[in-house]
């Protein structure tokens, strides 16, 4: 796993709040982080009012997250906020010294975007089509991580996603020599007359489901 090298400093703002500084960059206002966070959240009020799942890119020291949570609680009985942060040291410091009181907020720390998309709970969260909010100073600091996250394309060769398959599917695919084929290719092979066992039928059922048009209403 790739470890990032960053210099974390902790400063105190003029109004006494903690401000992390990474590689010389202040993640919040050195004067009044709370006021800055309030103004930041207001800019997203309309978006937050429409969605109860919120994805925040960048933890900072959580002031902006708290303000977004306040807004979310104003509009939704149930809401979930997930914060992505690639800086492990920052996450650990935050959790040890401040942390969120609101149980609807969770932080996910991953070194790269691929790891994020390999997490089924994260995928399920994204499936809810959350409102995405970018914390600019965090984003700029880890631009390559967030850009990779936003432009990510899942691998489509079986060998590349083998580890995420359930055991029975792993066993099934391991019986094929050379997993360096795409799922489409594998299914084409089955369709060309390569059906051997029930799992092959299962793969063809899966493919038929994906290709199926929505005929729910048709009599």
């Amino acid at each position: 796993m790739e470890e990032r090298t960053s210099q974390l400093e902790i400063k105190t703002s003029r109004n006494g709040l903690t401000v992390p500084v990474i590689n010389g960059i202040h993640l919040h206002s050195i004067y009044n982080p709370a006021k800055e966070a309030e103004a930041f959240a207001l800019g997203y009020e309309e978006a937050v009012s429409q969605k109860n799942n919120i994805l925040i890119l960048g933890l900072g020291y959580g002031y902006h997250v708290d303000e977004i949570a306040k807004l979310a609680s104003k509009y939704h009985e149930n809401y979930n906020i997930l914060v992505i942060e690639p800086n492990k040291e920052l996450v650990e410091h935050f959790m040890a010294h401040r942390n969120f009181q609101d149980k609807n907020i969770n932080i996910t720390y991953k070194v790269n975007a691929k790891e994020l998309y390999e997490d089924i709970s994260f995928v399920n969260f994204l499936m809810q089509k959350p409102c995405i909010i970018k914390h600019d100073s965090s984003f700029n600091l880890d631009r390559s991580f967030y850009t990779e996250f936003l432009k990510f394309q899942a691998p489509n060769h079986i060998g590349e996603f083998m580890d995420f398959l359930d055991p029975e599917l792993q066993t099934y695919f391991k019986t094929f020599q050379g997993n360096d084929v795409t799922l489409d290719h594998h299914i084409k092979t089955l369709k060309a007359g390569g059906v051997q066992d029930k799992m092959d039928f299962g793969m063809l059922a899966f493919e038929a489901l994906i290709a199926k048009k929505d005929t729910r209403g048709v009599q």
Partner: protein
Amino acid sequence: MNKLLITNLRSDFDLISCAHYINSYLQENPQTEVSLLIFKEQENIAKILANVSNLYTIDEQQIKNIQKNALFSDAFAMNNFFTSINDCLKTKWDNVVNYSNDEVGAFICSMLTSEQKHGTTISKLGSPVTSNAWASYQNFACQDRNKDVISKTIIRHHLTNTPYHREGTKVKINEEYSLIANQNFAKIRQSKGSDMDAKIIGISLVESYSNKRLNLETLINTVELIEESESFKTVLLLSGKPEEKQIINELNKHFENSLISINTDSNALSAVLANLDLFISMNNNSLAIADCIDTKTIEIRDGLANFATPATLNSDNYVIYQNNSSTLVDDIAFVMNQEFNTNLPVSSMSSDNKVYSIVGDDYGMLNTQIRGELNIQQELRYHIERCYHYQLLGYEKNNDLISHLKKNTDEDVLTECSTQIKDELTSTVKILLATLRSLKGVKSSKSNLQNFINYLDTLIARGRDNSIVKGPVCLFEGKVENITTTTIDENMKSIETFLFELKSDLQLLTNLVTDLISDGAETNSVSDLKNAEA
């Protein structure tokens, strides 16, 4: 206890109509535990079906959303799919039925462990395997037909040789809702103030499967018709969609808030429908549920769906194919007069719409036109084709029907119909005979194989046309697809047998047509077939 799994992975209508099948099956095989494999989105509908012990669901939308999004790994979609069907795979079934006859279901059924599989499954060679002639008929002959001459629900009963039982509990009726509905409807019946209780006519504002609605003018005219009679009272049924609320507001404005409307969810719907004397609706889930609880219905179909298969199964129901909405109220009045022996005003004896009554005969249910311009050739063809298809599937010829058609149809009309059928028959017989000849050629030299294959393809392609020979040719195709032998000689032998069976099947149609025309003259195709035998 026998374990039956029914896979139902197509439409809401298929799922609801499956209630008829479950009821019939359980009456024939009471010691059976019924399980359903369905899509998660249809879980609420499946929950109203009676006598279902287990529901297995596939979250189609979730799986598709994961798979289609480039961000997410296909691994998650596959995990989701295989987890969904895992319990079905682990169970040892006595019977599995691919009820909805869909591709996903066919592959899944092929994976399952079962004493018997009914309907269509897939062979290891990738071709469809059908469990009996009815399964072949469903899978091959019913494709791309606007109208099924035999109801799909009845065909599906035959997959397991199950006779249709009209009586029985098919959908659940919530006791609490039922009690409330009974009390409220008793009051509604008395609200007209006449000596006799009024009959309650439900009108659904819910859109059809093809997103069509009864228009406001039709609704106003129909409500007026019903409310002006002392014998009837209207109840409007809604599902809660905003468009329906808008319509109800318009209606209330017109009728000065005197109308009764009921907003029902799927749990309460059956309790409400059970209290109606007649239910008027576009073809939708409400209509299909009404049919399951044997509430009489008038099904309104869009005229563009000309002659499409009715959504209801039971006899004594009606279908109106709507071409002109302004005269629809007359058709409804006509049907109500017929049904309740009343004298509701009908302004014209003719109609731009076509009204059908569903009636029963020795074969089962059929549709017979009772109002509107008659396309005699279309109607004749429907009855002949239906009779023929039942014969193909092992039933006796319906001599009463043939006699009735002969007696009540002009000779010219019968001649025109038989000429048309003979033309279609003759061209197919010619291809069949050429195929048989080319098969003989293969026996003398394998170099003639390609010639035979070309003729066979041409013959099978006749099943794609919407001609009267579609049924037998498609059944032939089904038999060919079911061939399990692996050598060319064995395959050719099987195909030869099936070609002669097709010849016999076409002979049945020839005989039917001969019976229809008064002089009983032998047709060209008959003599062609006889020559071939010689």
